[in-house]
């Protein structure tokens, strides 16, 4: 039976309300169990030895002294992770990143690991491992890495991939332009900065079965990758996702989990492996550093005639799709006749780049939205009106290919134009900026089980990890579809052995796709309950309808039959055919694209270059906000991360290629006293491909802040900012350069 996923307008009862989350009490009482909060009997402590060099050939590793230390139960190197990747280069790169095979490609690259009876012994053992390195020349800067003669990571060029998007004729378009802005922008590398370090407990048995408890955004994907790397059968490895202490994309990739499994296999005991914060910074995450050229031309009336961008994104030592995502998203908010973007994926001696909330889009948006703002200024148009004059809408052919359905970029711009924030007076040394952002949103493979208990209460077992309250949202959706109160539904995240495969919680897909699977499962359960009611009443099932949480007999002839509740049907299940459940396995296609527009006011101290966020407003389309408070939370959280990226956060490398600030003291994320309240406005332009109109909401909020803040700072100081983060020294340098010019 096909599942009808099309949107139909309805009056919601549960969806759109703001109940408490089912995992809430555990989280405020300290009872919730995260990655590092789990232990197994006989467990060992795992530790990883990491390269201190940015680029080095590994000539040999002598582990004998470490192995001889009392209390050490296993020492492994790449030799203990034999290559089972069978020519799959993507998988091979994951293997090589987990444990360097012939070369260490960055400061922090894993080269060996130990399992010992306690942490002190494990630390001692690491010091006894002797690695013979041949140090090689390195390169960490994106532009340096592309120059001829730059140190090369692999046998082929550092330019690992080229992608191109667009349509029309940009040369002809620029010829029609009366005003052109052309600039180069740079952004520095940032980390997702989740507060919970990567942590897992791995247990591999002699019979080839295993268990992995881990904080992850996608336990089914971790299972697949880990089993492939270890040469295990996928179904023999059970992965349980712990509560997750933040991920933002950084927990979509495996890091130390295969190492923990290999240690456990060798030691014959469970191994707990928790990264230190230093390791998290040096060897997980981060996002790309970028260098981006943008050129946009327009008529004096304010119509963009052509737009182009060349985007260079670092990917670390292994090719990714980061520049390509930048090239796809760069001009997505606009309706352009002539547009072209080219992305270059650049290999450097930095950690492997991982997804970070709308990966690659914030940097592209920073460059494009800065240029758009400058162009509006040059023409003499209000930056909001200029954007509205060129905005994409339903039917627009997007800059990356597809034709848009109903989208929210126009409405967010109009809401911003009319927002009181835009009219509020500014103080001395303050500037206002605004910018737009886009993210695709993903769907993907999803599976949900809905089980009805004997008392009529309902459990939904979902396979998308809950990173920010999705168990509450999905319970609301199940309650809505079944027509029962929210309190009667409990959502749990099932492990990999008890539910079908699910893609990760990424691409803002968690609530979008699992709600779709939940609706489908609920409809299947309703079909069963209608059949059971028909049986109980001894009437044709065609005469039974489901309304307001009850089976009702329709038609005059059944007029005397009182409606049957879920509970009444469930109580009789043993006599009417057994347990009642609804299952659903779908590919959740049709994720509606997402747009946002942000406004911010920034104050700049011209003496020190210090900045203060005075006011911040987020306007974003949610399709339908299932739990509006949690939607607001996503908007605010993304904005705060964007603020940190724009103003402070960056990876700082020394000349030796070593990361100089691998800790929260020197890599400073925004703290409570750095930020104002963050206002939010939720727009609801229904996604036509979801029964309730839902779109993903998690990622887009990090896309506009870099540009919105750069525009605000530029307006405050009268100098165009082109390098993120706008830390005090960088702002002062820009002011000095302007004075000197």
């Amino acid at each position, binding site marked *: 039976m096909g599942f009808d996923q099309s949107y139909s307008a309805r009056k919601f009862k549960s969806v759109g309300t*703001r109940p*408490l*989350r089912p*995992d*809430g*009490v555990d*989280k*405020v*009482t*300290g*009872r*919730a*169990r*995260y990655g*590092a*909060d789990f232990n197994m009997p006989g467990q060992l402590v795992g530790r990883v030895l990491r390269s201190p060099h940015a680029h080095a050939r590994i000539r040999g590793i002598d582990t004998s002294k470490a192995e001889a230390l009392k209390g050490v139960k296993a020492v492994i190197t790449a030799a203990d992770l034999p290559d089972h990747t069978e020519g799959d280069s993507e998988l091979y790169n994951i293997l090589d990143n987990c444990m360097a095979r012939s070369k260490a490609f960055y400061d922090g690259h894993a080269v060996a690991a130990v399992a010992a009876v306690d942490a*002190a012994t494990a630390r001692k053992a690491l010091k006894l491992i002797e690695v013979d390195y041949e140090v090689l020349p390195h390169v960490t800067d994106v532009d340096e890495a592309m120059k001829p003669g730059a140190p090369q990571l692999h046998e082929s060029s550092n330019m690992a991939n080229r992608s191109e998007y667009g349509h029309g004729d940009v040369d002809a378009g620029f010829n029609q332009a009366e005003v052109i802005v052309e600039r180069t922008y740079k952004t520095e590398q940032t980390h*997702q*900065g*989740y*507060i*919970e*370090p990567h942590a897992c407990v791995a247990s591999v048995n002699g019979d080839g079965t295993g268990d992995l408890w881990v904080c992850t955004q996608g336990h089914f994907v971790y299972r697949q990758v880990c089993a492939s790397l270890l040469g295990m059968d996928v179904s023999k490895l059970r992965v349980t996702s712990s*509560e*997750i*202490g*933040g*991920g*933002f994309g950084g927990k979509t990739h495996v890091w130390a989990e295969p190492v923990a499994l290999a240690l456990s296999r060798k030691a014959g005991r469970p191994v707990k492996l*928790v990264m*230190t*914060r230093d390791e998290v910074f040096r060897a997980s995450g981060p996002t790309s550093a970028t260098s981006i050229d943008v050129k946009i031309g327009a008529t004096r009336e304010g119509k963009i005639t052509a737009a182009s961008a060349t985007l260079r994104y670092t990917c670390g030592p292994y090719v990714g799709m980061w520049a390509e995502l930048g090239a796809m998203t760069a001009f997505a908010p606009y309706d352009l006749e002539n547009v072209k973007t080219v992305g270059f994926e650049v290999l450097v001696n930095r950690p492997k780049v991982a997804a970070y909330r709308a990966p690659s889009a914030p940097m592209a948006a920073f460059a494009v939205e800065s240029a758009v703002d400058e162009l509006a200024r040059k023409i003499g148009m209000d930056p909001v009106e200029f954007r509205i004059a060129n905005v994409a809408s339903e039917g627009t052919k997007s800059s990356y290919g597809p034709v848009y359905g109903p989208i929210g970029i126009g409405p967010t711009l109009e809401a911003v134009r009319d927002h009181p924030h835009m009219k509020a007076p500014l103080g001395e040394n303050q500037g206002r900026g605004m910018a737009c952002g886009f993210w695709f949103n993903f769907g993907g493979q999803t599976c949900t089980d809905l089980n009805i208990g004997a008392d009529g209460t309902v459990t939904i077992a979902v396979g998308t990890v809950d*990173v*920010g*309250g999705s168990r509450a949202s999905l319970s609301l959706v199940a309650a809505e579809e079944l027509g029962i109160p929210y309190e009667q539904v409990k959502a749990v995240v099932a492990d990999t052995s008890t539910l079908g495969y699910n893609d990760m919680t990424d691409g803002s897909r968690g609530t979008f796709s699992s709600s779709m699977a939940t609706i489908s499962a609920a409809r299947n359960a309703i079909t069963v309950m209608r059949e059971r009611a028909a049986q109980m009443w001894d009437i044709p099932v065609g005469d039974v309808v489901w309304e307001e949480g009850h089976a009702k007999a329709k038609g005059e002839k059944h007029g005397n039959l009182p409606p049957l509740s879920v509970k009444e049907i469930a109580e009789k299940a043993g006599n009417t055919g057994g347990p009642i459940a609804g299952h659903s396995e779908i590919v959740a296609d049709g994720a509606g694209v997402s747009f946002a527009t942000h406004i911010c006011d920034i104050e700049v101290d011209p003496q020190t270059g210090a900045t203060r966020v005075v006011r911040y407003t987020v306007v974003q389309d949610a399709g339908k906000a299932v739990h509006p*408070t*949690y939607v*607001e*939370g996503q908007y*605010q*959280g993304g*904005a*705060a*991360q964007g603020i940190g990226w724009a103003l402070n956060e960056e990876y700082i490398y020394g000349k030796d290629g070593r990361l100089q600030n691998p*800790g*929260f*003291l020197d890599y400073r*994320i*925004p*703290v*409570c*006293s*750095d*930020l104002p*309240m*963050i206002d939010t406005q939720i727009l609801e332009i229904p996604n036509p491909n979801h029964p309730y109109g839902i779109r993903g909401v998690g990622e887009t909020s990090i896309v506009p802040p870099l540009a919105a803040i750069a525009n605000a700072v530029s307006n405050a100081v009268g100098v165009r900012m082109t390098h993120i983060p706008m830390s005090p020294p960088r702002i002062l340098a820009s002011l000095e350069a302007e004075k000197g010019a």
Partner: protein
Amino acid sequence: MSGIAVSTTINGDDVEFLCQAEETLLDVLRDRLGLTGAKEGCGTGDCGACSVIVDGRLVCSCLVLGAEAEGRSIETIEGMADGEKLHPLQEKFLEHAALQCGVCTPGFLMAAKDLLTRNPDPTEEEIRFALAGNLCRCTGYDKIVRAVQDAATVMKGA
């Protein structure tokens, strides 16, 4: 292997444990006593996820040695609720959705409790500075500040 014998009070209960000299209070709480509510986000006193209150003073338990607990009175997140009855701060954190992933939440609750003990009627700025030693990456702090404001109002009325 011998250890240091420590007698202390945790959430009102007498507790005795043995620990090594280099073990932090956080290690002891989590690994020896099974109190995993305090989290290790950094181990260097920068994130506040391991916040506990020792003799009425808010500390990062990753910066205190286990042996230093001798004779002290320690409050952790596990002792914040009174049985099933949540502390007003816990209730307000839930109501305001002041947590998303929740891993920083125990630390924030301890820091907020410490603030309201010292200052029952804090301004927004006082709240923001009192919580500046606790990192949250999910919320942007907006809903945390509102939850603390609301809890302060409730507690004043109590």
